[in-house]
């Protein structure tokens, strides 16, 4: 199957969970559906949900939790 990448439309800080005390939206190896949230990008203190454009298996997060991300940068790899 083809490897696909979810791209961040915004620059900012990437979070894999909705709050520090919550579990990650997705772990590597999890199944993901189209439209499912895979993380948040915080830009200037406002939070935007990042949803998967693809269905399949999460194979790799390319950005770590709380790391900086540029607009257009790939966040996660999905084997669909």
């Amino acid at each position, binding site marked *: 199957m083809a490897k696909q990448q979810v791209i961040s439309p*915004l*620059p*900012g*800080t990437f979070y894999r969970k909705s709050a520090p005390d919550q579990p990650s939206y997705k772990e590597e190896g999890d199944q993901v559906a189209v439209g499912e949230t895979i993380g948040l990008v915080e*830009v200037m*203190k406002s939070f935007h949900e990042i949803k998967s454009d693809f269905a399949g298996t999460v194979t790799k997060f390319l950005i770590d939790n*709380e*790391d*900086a991300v540029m607009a257009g940068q790939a966040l996660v790899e999905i084997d669909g």
Partner: protein
Amino acid sequence: MAIASLLIANRGEIAVRIIRAARDLGIRTVQVYSQADAESLAVQLADSAVEIGPPAAAKSYLNIEAVLAAARESGADAVHPGYGFLAENPGFADAVEAAGLIYVGPKGATIRLLGDKIAAREAASKAGVPTVPGSPDRIDDPAAALDLAARIGFPVLIKATAGGGGRGIRVAKDRTEFSRLAPLASAEAKAAFGDGGIYIEKLIQKARHIEIQVLGDGDRVVHFFERECSLQRRRQKVWEEAPAATLPGDMRRELCAAAVALAQSVNYRGAGTLEFLYDDDAKEFYFLEMNTRIQVEHPVTEFVTGIDLVREMIRIAQGEPLALRQEDIQLNGHAIECRINAEDPANDFMPAPGSVTALRVPGGPGVRFDSMLYPGCEIPPFYDSLLGKLIVWDNTRAGALRRLQGALSELEISGVSTTAPLHRALAADEDVRSANFHTRFLEQWLERNDISPA
């Protein structure tokens, strides 16, 4: 102890502001910065700069260990927290002092006390300062609740003790409605939060946000009159003035006396602001909270009193007694501040980081522009959207409004969207011009008015 070298544990326009105040006192400045801020104006203007980590604030500006390491490495003997980030973190104030450094602000214990809503309310009551009337704690007996609601006066809010973020709140406008809603609210709270506890609070329907600036040296406290910050969006202040245009003189005296009494009761040291809701119709005010730091909107107070608040707070941190007597502080004229944020008011205030390609800064008498901007600067996406503040002063409010309109027409920021067009529209609005506003005015105004792009 005289400060020789001051570390600025902040960024953006307030870091620039603190550098300027320190420079006026002959103090060397050390600016900490994240990897996203290496080219920032504050880094350029400080005597030296130390990188403290990656862009994310949690890993740089909020990293206490990294800030303290920078202080050790640079030989700074004092730390100024600015506002936001670590500014109201009592653990940070304690850690700075434990490291043998001066913290420019109150003691950690004072920050801790006033940061706790219940404790701050109690401190206010003890000092004789009114808080929003309500039940002091949860109230389970329906008859007692109705009794108390009637004593407070309708309308009242019925709130779930276990609720939060606006959830589990009902408004009762009379006894009948209260009797119907209180059991409902309790049952709902039980279902939603697993706890049916409710408490009641007076609904302040149309109030202004009025706050009093104080300075204390740990012994004596003086006030610098009020600011009005009623124009807010999502609880964020957008436009601030000093003094409050419609506040009667007797109420001004009462508010200032209440603020000094509360600050005095905790032996306040440093710059602080006591926030109140003020009900025009009832001529009553209620203490909300005390901010234990310098505030974004401090320049309007500096304009109408002629006193450099940031310089005074550094002097106090050096152990100098308050240089001012209350009678030295006089109100003169009127000042207005507009917050210039990197947000697009034509597109639901979408954050707008990016590169500033060109900049034209307004000037002339009574005009001040505190900002982090220079032509070509990058606005990183990692921090809040405040780029700077345009502050104007004139003898009268009408004059200040004219100056504001002139200054806003001079201001040009290219490359990123800003809230300047919102301020141009507000400065021309009849209600704003007659100070006919309250804390929910701006959100209602935004529903009626479209902001066309600059």
